[in-house]
């Protein structure tokens, strides 16, 4: 293996798999992927254009920014307006519209909002700015949450009292079961997340397959990975075989990453959570555990964060249906005119992993 990327991006390999897929002559299928990075890869590599007409690919709620309620952005903007606070955030949250404003707009008006690549950088920022309060906007699924947890334990080890986390982290299993059990969304197979699975392992997918009879394939992100996952799913779904196959075994083990899971559950504990478009899903969220309560921004700044869970849908925006795979971006009346990456109405357009952003960017 040279770099674990080129081998799986090999165009001849992908072409051969696509050719085999084109021979599919079974029943029409709807396949759903539930990972924002898969959403982007599928559009970027033009995967839909390689599929037979009877195989349809839809996106599920795999983009953590897209499923964060607008109330959270309102809370972030309120915190940003406090001159004592430095807001630290992943880049794609910066332009997500809240009900009246966004972090980008707040920043333009003078708020201290900084984009970070790693939550660990926020801890350093807090150390370097003892007179300020650093609030990290903690959004993400199981891939990111262990890293956020690590940031909290680092802050605790250093005895920092000016580092806070506004947690909106979510976990996948409950959302997957909700989708699988929704008879109005007919899904014949799931492409399971690659990097969430490196942390969680694959056992929960077997539960979904058994309980709901839907096969699944854990897939990597290169063209050959995605095409082969669809090929495998087509074969399983056509025969109605509800099995789960791990085709990302170079990175995903059945038991996941126990060290990362331990860290995640040391710092966070499950709670009910509001998913934009899906409503409240019990035990699908994560909040800071009592041991780390002193780092909880919701406790430190109750006034600004009281409504962080409010889900406010802009009128006419179809993000909610798109997140459930019930509509595609081009079905939304705002897509491409009132709602563009430069002037987004909903989160699906502004997030780097949103369906609408993917469709807009790659026209696929």
């Amino acid at each position, binding site marked *: 293996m040279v770099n*674990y990327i080129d081998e799986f991006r090999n165009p001849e390999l992908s072409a051969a798999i696509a050719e085999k897929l084109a021979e599919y002559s079974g029943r029409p299928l709807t396949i759903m992927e539930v990972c924002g990075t898969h959403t982007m890869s599928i559009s970027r590599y033009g995967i839909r254009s390689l599929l037979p007409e009877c195989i349809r690919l839809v996106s599920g709620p795999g983009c953590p920014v897209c499923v964060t309620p607008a109330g959270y952005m309102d809370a972030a903007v309120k915190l940003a307006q406090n001159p004592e606070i430095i807001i630290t955030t992943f880049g794609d949250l910066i332009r997500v519209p809240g009900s009246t404003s966004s972090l980008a707009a707040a920043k333009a008006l003078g708020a201290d909002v900084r984009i970070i*690549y790693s939550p660990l950088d926020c801890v350093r920022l807090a150390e370097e700015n003892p007179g300020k309060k650093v609030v990290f906007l903690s959004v993400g699924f199981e891939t990111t949450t262990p890293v956020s947890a690590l940031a909290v334990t680092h802050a605790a080890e250093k005895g920092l009292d000016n580092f806070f986390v506004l947690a909106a982290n979510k976990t996948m299993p409950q959302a997957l079961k909700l989708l699988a059990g929704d008879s109005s969304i007919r899904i014949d197979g799931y492409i399971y997340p690659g990097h969430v699975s490196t942390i969680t392992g694959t056992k929960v997918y077997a539960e979904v397959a058994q309980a709901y009879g839907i096969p699944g394939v854990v897939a990597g992100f290169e063209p050959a990975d995605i095409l082969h996952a669809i090929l495998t799913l087509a074969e399983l779904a056509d025969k109605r075989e509800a099995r789960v196959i791990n085709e990302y075994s170079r990175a995903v083990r059945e038991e996941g990453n126990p060290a990362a899971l331990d860290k995640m559950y040391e710092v966070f504990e499950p709670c009910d959570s509001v998913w934009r478009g899906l409503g409240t899903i019990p035990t699908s969220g994560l909040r800071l555990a009592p041991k780390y309560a002193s780092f909880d921004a919701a406790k430190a700044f109750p006034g600004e964060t009281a409504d962080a869970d409010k889900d406010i849908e802009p009128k006419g925006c179809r993000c909610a249906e798109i997140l459930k795979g019930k509509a595609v971006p081009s079905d939304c009346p705002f897509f491409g005119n009132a709602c563009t990456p430069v002037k987004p109405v909903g989160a699906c357009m502004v997030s780097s992993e949103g369906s609408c952003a993917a469709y807009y960017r790659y026209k696929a």
Partner: protein
Amino acid sequence: MCLSIPGKIVELNGTDAVVDIMGALRGISTELVPDAGLGDYVLIHAGCAIQKLDEEEAANTIQLFKDLKEVMNG
């Protein structure tokens, strides 16, 4: 958000590592993958290694993709 990229550990000092990502060098933490060692390929996400990459499994997967046989085995 789940964007993770493979990189090779070229320097290791406790749990502070430097990885080579297709020629670019970056500092990361290996705290979440405590058994990662010098020369290992790891997946990097938000400044941390999140898993070791398994070369044998990668080779198996490539072979699976090349074979294009009926996928009946798990």
